[in-house]
């Protein structure tokens, strides 16, 4: 008996695999979210309204899509800094096709394929080139941004068809379509990661790549796949953004990779891979969304907003690490 009892006294680093659903769903970030939510409900009269909450969800959807893809990558101990640029590039391609009178569905699908191919390029370098993900995607961050500028000539592509904008501006039973799309992607991602052999293998690769390789897992194929998923979701985020704005900007998505990584980390996913959940990520994205929204409602000077946001992020991460240890 003693043999393992004294082992269990050691500090816990893994939250995902602990007993109890509290820890399983990473309720540290959820608790932080609730606190911020309640605080804003009290301090701002306009925060807790259906209209505003739907607005928060809508504003969060682009970052949430990016963060979901980012979670796949980070679970393998990787990182994708190029998502903002992929978003811009694939959006520009779709917009270019649209003003060339290509069918909306076809143009959107081509945009998604471009995003997936961009991810494939990242994945090839990481999986087969054995290069550090940070370096590879730092390179493609610049490459895809440059490609976007070349393609657009540095000017926004507008005059997109009405029907395309209705995707971003439209709603179904009162819920904005981008929110519904994000919810579906989230559900699919959650099931894939938690319930399928593929998800389990992604966690295994992040937890111990060598052990996963020896267990017969085709590690390279999976590494490549997570970057493809991440690229495709960046393109999807781009479609949402473009249809909401009604134009594709060459500077679209600039710096978005950092918000996506922040959401993932806020959600308790380890940058070293193998640990974390999509639940955490979506809560991380919501925390960021609620903070921005709340600070606007409270009329906080925009100079102060970023600083306050930074402090809240650091505080939330500290709370989470304390709880986990």
């Amino acid at each position, binding site marked *: *008996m*003693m*043999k*393992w*009892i*004294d*082992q*269990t*006294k*050691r500090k*816990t*680093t*893994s939250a*995902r*695999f*602990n*007993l109890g659903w509290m820890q399983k769903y990473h309720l540290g970030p959820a608790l932080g979210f609730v606190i911020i939510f309640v605080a804003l409900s009290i301090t701002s009269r306009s925060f807790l309204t259906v209209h505003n909450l739907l607005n928060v969800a809508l504003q969060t959807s682009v970052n949430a899509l990016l963060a979901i893809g980012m979670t796949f990558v980070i679970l393998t101990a990787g990182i994708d800094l190029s998502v903002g640029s992929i978003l811009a590039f694939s959006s520009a391609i779709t917009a270019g096709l649209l003003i060339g009178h290509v069918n909306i569905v076809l143009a959107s699908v081509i945009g998604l394929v471009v995003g997936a191919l961009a991810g494939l390029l990242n994945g090839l370098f990481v999986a087969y080139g054995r290069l550090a993900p940070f370096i590879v995607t730092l390179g493609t961050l610049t490459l895809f941004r440059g490609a976007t500028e070349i393609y657009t000539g540095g000017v926004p592509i507008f005059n997109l068809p009405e029907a395309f904008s209705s995707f971003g501006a439209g709603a179904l039973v009162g819920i904005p379509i981008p929110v519904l799309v994000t919810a579906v992607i989230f559900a699919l991602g959650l099931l894939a990661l938690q*319930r*399928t*052999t*593929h998800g*389990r*293998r992604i*966690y*295994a690769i992040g*937890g*111990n790549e*060598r*052990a*996963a*390789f*020896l*267990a*017969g*897992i*085709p590690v390279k194929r999976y590494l490549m796949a997570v970057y493809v998923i991440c690229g495709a979701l960046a393109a999807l985020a781009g479609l949402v953004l473009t249809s909401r704005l009604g134009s594709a900007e060459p500077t679209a998505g600039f710096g978005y990779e950092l918000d996506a990584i922040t959401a993932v980390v806020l959600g308790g996913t380890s940058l070293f891979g*193998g*640990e974390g959940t999509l639940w955490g990520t979506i809560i991380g994205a919501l925390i960021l969304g609620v903070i921005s929204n709340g600070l606007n409602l409270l009329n906080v000077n925009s100079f102060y907003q970023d600083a306050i946001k930074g402090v809240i992020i650091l505080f939330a991460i500290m709370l989470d690490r304390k709880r986990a240890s």
Partner: protein
Amino acid sequence: MSTLKATGITKTFSGVTVLHDISLDVPGGKIVALVGENGAGKSTLMNIFAGALRPDSGSILIDGQPQQFHSVSDATNAGIAMIYQELNVFLNLSIAENFLIGNEGAYARSGGLIDRHALREAVMSTLEAVGLRRNPDDLVADLGVGERQLVEIGKALRRKSRFLILDEPTAALTEQETSRLFLILRSLRDQGVSIIYISHRLAEVFELADSVVVLRDGQEVASQSIAETSESELVTQMVGRQITNLYPRIASAPGKVALRLDRVSTAKTHDVSLTVRAGEIVGLGGMMGSGRTEIARAIAGLDPIIAGTLELDGEARHFRSPRAALAAGVAFLTEDRKYDGLVLPFSAQQNLALPTLDTRQRFSWISQHEERAFAQRMRDSLRIKLQSLDQPVERLSGGNQQKVALGKWLERNPKALVLDEPTRGVDVGAKQEIYNLMNDLKRQGKAILMISSDLPELLGMSDRVYIVRDFTIAGELDGHDMTQVEFMRFATGGK
């Protein structure tokens, strides 16, 4: 000479007593061995000595004076130095710089500059004292494990440590490095330094220690002079029951050749020829760095074979990956379960299930129910002790981790198993269970190739033994020739 004494040490973690009324007496200039199974409380006790943990009751006395350690530096200042299994050296710094860290005051000049000359002098004389013939400017990364250990011991001596605690110091050392370490430890003892020596290797205890203390389940079960005890008595004390046969080899009835290597060469090994029959345990021995693991890697599909043939059940095979080897029926238990054997944040269940995920899926969907049932079955048949199958394996004891690392392959029903150091870092009781498991596999007709640095184990469990030297097979022993003397003759290339 100084004496170190502990009386009535009790330590509880959340209601569980891990040390119960332990008393330990370390006379000046003596080597006291501390033995016990994993989880017996050795590390907790040593961490109390080292100031990293505080006891609930009991006291530590140096020369009869009660000590209060609130931190590791308190213990260090009192003259106690702990050398952990995982060494605390800075690989990216030179030997001299390693000496400097934590002792900057001794070599400081005004303005925060370092007195390089004084440092160099001090390091040189210390290196000589510990018998390390190295330049102080050498990078620690370029040193062997044994040499790094001597750097740590040297640092401890430099701090005027009178009590040295070593935790499994020989676990990663070669035979040569081990004998050099023993030489140094004996000479330190003769200079009045007291040493507490923790080891799983009982032969070393008898070679080195003056007395031996046995812990079991947090209790002190014996404290005796080394002359008064024997290896089998120590084992009985550690395990709490008598183990009649340390190496329960069963009679073999080998079938046809299951695994054959014919003049196999890889980038490292060359002209390796060996056979393992079904229902046979074949040992693969040799000095550390002789190429044993490299041969295993070639069989497991990790290193490409560039010449020669590998046959499985009489069929020539060419594995391009571990995946291919596994599919053909070759399982590989690696020597370091934490490095490449287990996914540490995964639960026991998830680790056990990893190589056979596909057998319990429908359209990639994992059946939680089937996986749980499978894991329970493995847990029971391997006698893995855990609170819950959802417990992360990183929190299991070494023996239970090893059972998971080995057990996960069994569901693949391999024809041949390559076991690299199957009992490394595993306590006596769990060793027996792993041996019994190997015997079960042997009875089932599996071909087993076992690599081991533990010579008695290698000779005791194997039906035949190959000796590796210079990355090829240097000889083969069976029957009455399987003696340590014969083995060493081949392993060292002597006549």
